[in-house]
């Protein structure tokens, strides 16, 4: 062993060991648990623990609430990712404008919601979204629109939660995009301008290809993030109304830590795992196709 590799192992083994203990082994165990009927009965008496093969998955697929949770989560990702990424990009573009002054100040303020705790800000947002006394409905009524029963109407609850999540997270990607925009070659932009390309054409053919890889990476991370929404419904709606905000992770938490059906809950975790992996692969493939990666 060389001196370098000895040092390398000294430097890496502690963190790798911890990753192994708290991440790799449990993930493997989750796979193992998902083919058992570990439930409250097994908690009472280990003799009640059995191998059930794919039984948990079959049961899950026959459970309507599981599909609702999947649909809700899908909706979160489908609406949430464009909403969050779009906001980040729009604000980053706005900030990128040469004429805007005090950029560092704006950046810091826009980023502030990102550093706050979900538990604390969801308290605030429950008030903002309140049907009777909320700021949002106040603003809507002020412009003549009818108020919305944000957290009480099963059709409005997901958009309401996504509004909150977008507010909270957009600052992060805004900063990431700001960095990417700064790296767009100035001479290319100038050339396009001289060629008479309009704002949209310049954005489409110069800016977009330049920030493509960043955009893709942000999208991958956002999809993974939106598929893992949990704390927001946990503190704001308890999964309601009509289970419209029960996400896959919320469902998993309920099955696992509320009712202690660890077998079933691990099956849910495993499905989520596969889903995220698949989506990441698809996105990477798309990225390769457009030569962004």
């Amino acid at each position, binding site marked *: 062993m060389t001196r370098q590799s000895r040092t390398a192992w000294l430097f890496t083994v502690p963190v790798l060991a911890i990753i192994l203990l708290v991440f790799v082994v449990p993930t493997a165990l989750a796979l193992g648990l998902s083919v058992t*009927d570990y*439930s409250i009965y097994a*908690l009472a008496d280990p003799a*009640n623990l059995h191998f059930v093969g794919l039984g948990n998955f079959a049961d899950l697929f026959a459970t309507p609430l599981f599909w609702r949770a999947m649909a809700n989560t899908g909706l979160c990702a489908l609406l949430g990712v464009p909403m969050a990424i779009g906001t980040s990009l729009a604000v980053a573009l706005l900030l990128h404008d040469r004429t805007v002054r005090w950029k560092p100040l704006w950046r810091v303020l826009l980023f502030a919601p990102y550093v706050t705790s979900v538990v604390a800000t969801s308290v605030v947002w429950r008030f903002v979204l309140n*049907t009777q006394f909320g700021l949002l409905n106040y603003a809507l009524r002020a412009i003549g629109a009818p108020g919305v029963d944000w*957290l009480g109407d099963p059709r409005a609850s997901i958009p309401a939660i996504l509004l909150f999540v977008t507010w909270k997270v957009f600052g992060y990607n805004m900063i990431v995009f700001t960095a990417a925009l700064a790296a767009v070659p100035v001479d290319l932009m100038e050339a396009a301008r001289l060629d008479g390309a309009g704002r949209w054409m310049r954005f489409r053919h110069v800016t977009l290809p330049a920030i493509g890889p960043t955009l893709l990476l942000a999208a991958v991370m956002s999809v993974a993030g939106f598929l893992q929404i949990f704390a927001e419904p946990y503190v704001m709606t308890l999964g309601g*109304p009509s289970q419209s905000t029960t996400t896959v992770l919320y469902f998993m938490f309920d099955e696992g830590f509320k009712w202690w059906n660890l077998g079933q809950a691990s099956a849910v975790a495993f499905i989520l795992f596969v889903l995220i992996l698949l989506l990441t692969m698809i996105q990477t493939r798309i990225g390769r196709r457009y030569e962004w990666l």
Partner: protein
Amino acid sequence: MIKLFRRHIAVPSGTSRWADANASMPTAPTRRTVIAALPAALLAGCSNRRDPRALSVWAMSYEGDYSPLLMPAFTRATGIPVEVQTLPWTAAHEKLLTAFSGDSLPDVLMLPNGWVGEFAMIGAIAPLADPALVDDVFPSVRAAMRYGAHDYGVPWSVAPQMQYYRADLLAREGFGAVSLDWASWRRMGLALKRRRPDDYVVLSYLNWPDTLFTFAGQAGAPLLRDRDTRGDFAGPAFTEALRFYKSLFDDGLAPRALSTELQDPIAAFARGYFAIYPGGPTLLLDLRRRAAEIPPDRWAVTRMPGPRGPGAVDGISACLAVARSSPRPTEAWALVRHMTSARSELQFQAMIGNLPARRSAWSSPQLATPRLAAFAAQMRQPASQPAIVEMERIRAEVQLIAERVVRDQLTVEEGTLLMNRRVDALLAKRRALVEAGRIA
């Protein structure tokens, strides 16, 4: 098991949360008291570890908030300090189960009666050390403490669901008292709604199963069949109860609201946003505290309506149990004995409203008030639900389906059939164990 109506605790502005627990407390805090309190609080933060001599107690909601006041007497008598931790009702079940599987249960825990069987089965709580502890309690209440051949808890308080109503609003429409059978109750509700179309008649949160299960119990619905291994929700009695429940929302008598939506139900009750508020005895405490907003002559309380007059009603009756993992069972049982003594129960009744479970306490003049008479009548007619591990979950899932019926996403018939299917799936494990003869 039952999550009644006391999570939304609010306090009139300017008074302390504890103002009526101790009238001598300074109420409106000045800037100076705040500044004076801060260093003390900072110090408290540093000496933050648990007292190793202390017995730990977990209790929910008001019981948790107020039981520290029962402890000085115990500590004086035994020299053992007690630390109480309050759990919110909506997170209590998962908290207790997680603590059990993580070996971190307290010495003494409060359980609603419906959870006793579950926690006894998993071996979280110990059987009673001394059967004499439950000698004096009402037999119907005591029955809920049994699992197999043993008693596992000591009944602490009885809290049947009742209907609190705005007597002034009802009188204005010519109703001297609230109706006690479904048909005339509904007529009364419709009359009120016609007069006050923007307000509602009754508050029943769509994510809490209490009202529906009260109706089902009164209609005599069996809930489960085949030795509690299958759902029995499609029968005529439960269907009738669900229909009546749904009609409350269809006719605009009850708002389609979740518990997370209404910021302050007591204030809404005071405003007349709804005229009837089903709840347990702790609502007495809330109403006493908020007497400035809703004076006592404006409301009254009586038994819940039943299909043909009042009947058996369940409630959030609670017991105290000792964790099997407690290293000091003798002291823990001594604490349970203290907390469930007639004297403590009466003290608790005066503080938070909950009714004593001991017969001997009921000879006290403290309970002989007209308002408590209705509670006393209801107490003699408790309902009981199947004492099986899955019951809490069954209630939650049945309520989820009921919510979809109320929101017209399912018809009543589809709903009851779905309830049976869902409950059958939840009970699959139990069914297998019962058929194999592994559990009774």
